[in-house]
């Protein structure tokens, strides 16, 4: 398989105006990926599937990632003049990155037996209007998985032939795989709670003011 840079350059040439970034994975897997802009995603995907040297004809996996708002601290060396002497001083800049949702596709080529090529798309924000173009028209195998992403992360895939919930029922409104999902409180009977579960189960403990003193009662039973 060609290197990511080569694929990126070719794809940018083939799909005019497409903007592709390489997202580097510094982990041991070193599976870096291509970040594709939403507007040209369909054209780039078409290119990846049809180009004779690439022929990524099989989308084995599509999944979602939820990124919350986060703050990145960057430390740079800045030259400043302190007491008439020029010094190098560490300066910390806090950069705020607004949250977004991501859809990740793993592509393989059955014909050339190479892969995986990982492509990503990002939504503009994390609110419920989060939209991405659907790649189902290009890889049919993404259909159910995009429905799953829609169900669990709440990304709306435009151009998907049948976008409904797949795991949860239709009346359900939440997206359970989002990091800020709050599950319903049904922790009334936890025989061996610990950590998070203990905190939730404590909401259901009966207070014992005669033993612990009223001021120590932290939670009220419901």
């Amino acid at each position: 398989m060609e290197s990511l840079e080569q694929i990126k350059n070719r794809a940018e040439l083939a799909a005019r105006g497409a903007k592709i970034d390489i997202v580097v994975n510094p982990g041991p897997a070193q599976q870096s990926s291509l970040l594709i802009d939403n507007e040209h995603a369909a054209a780039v995907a078409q290119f990846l599937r049809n180009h004779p040297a690439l022929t990524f004809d099989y989308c084995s996996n599509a999944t979602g990632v939820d990124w919350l708002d986060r703050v990145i601290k960057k430390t740079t060396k800045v030259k400043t003049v302190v007491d008439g002497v020029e010094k190098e001083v560490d300066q910390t800049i806090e950069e705020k990155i607004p949250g977004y949702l991501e859809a990740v596709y793993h592509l393989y080529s059955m014909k050339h037996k190479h892969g995986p090529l990982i492509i990503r798309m990002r939504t503009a924000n994390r609110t419920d209007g989060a939209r991405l173009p659907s790649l189902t028209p290009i890889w049919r195998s993404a259909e159910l998985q995009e429905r799953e992403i829609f169900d669990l992360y709440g990304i709306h895939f435009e151009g998907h032939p049948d976008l409904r919930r797949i795991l949860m029922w239709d009346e359900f409104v939440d997206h359970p795989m989002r990091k800020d999902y709050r599950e319903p409180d049904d922790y009334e009977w936890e025989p061996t709670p610990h950590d998070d579960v203990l905190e939730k189960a404590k909401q259901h403990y009966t207070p014992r003011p005669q033993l612990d003193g009223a001021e120590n009662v932290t939670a009220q039973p419901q």
Partner: protein
Amino acid sequence: MSEGQIDEALRSELQRQGVWVTSMQELYNWGRKNSIWPLQFGLACCAIEMIATAASRYDIARFGGEIFRPSPRQADLMIVAGTVTKKMAPQIVRLYNQMPDPKYVISMGACAISGGPFKQGYNVLKGIDRYIPVDVYIPGCPPRPEALLHAFMELQRKIDSQKLTGAGKAEHLDAKQPSEFPVPAFGEHDLQPPANPDVYHPPVLERQS
């Protein structure tokens, strides 16, 4: 000696003379406990063990329970074998409601008891006893076929001890006991209601200081 019971000494004496004495209650319960027909459905991996129990090595037929019925109308016993997801729970309750009285429930495996390995999952019901009354619980993940057989024998023991008349008579003979339970509805965040308070009585947890 309570009413309806036979003096054991007299009975064995008569038996030696070639006379078999029994009571209506004994005959009725003997017939019922030896022909328990389970409902044929499995939900997850525990169902594989249930199938093994029905197959020749463990052979649930020895206890009269081999006739798995594909229709709730012909079943006496519901073996909830496997993970009950929240999406499946209304169907299970509806199946239970459609079974004719008398009916019994065995909650097989950690999942059916409490949600098991998936207890904190967003999609798993934390125990089928939130909606329907359970007669026998079998812990395990999955319980071995022997455990299911044990539960089956436990259920037979329970059936054997049920009374035909009097204050403590069996539920299905009591006109006041319900035979159907409300089916939970799909809510916006969870099943509605999350548990049926008439059925589900979790132990009260003392606050630990």
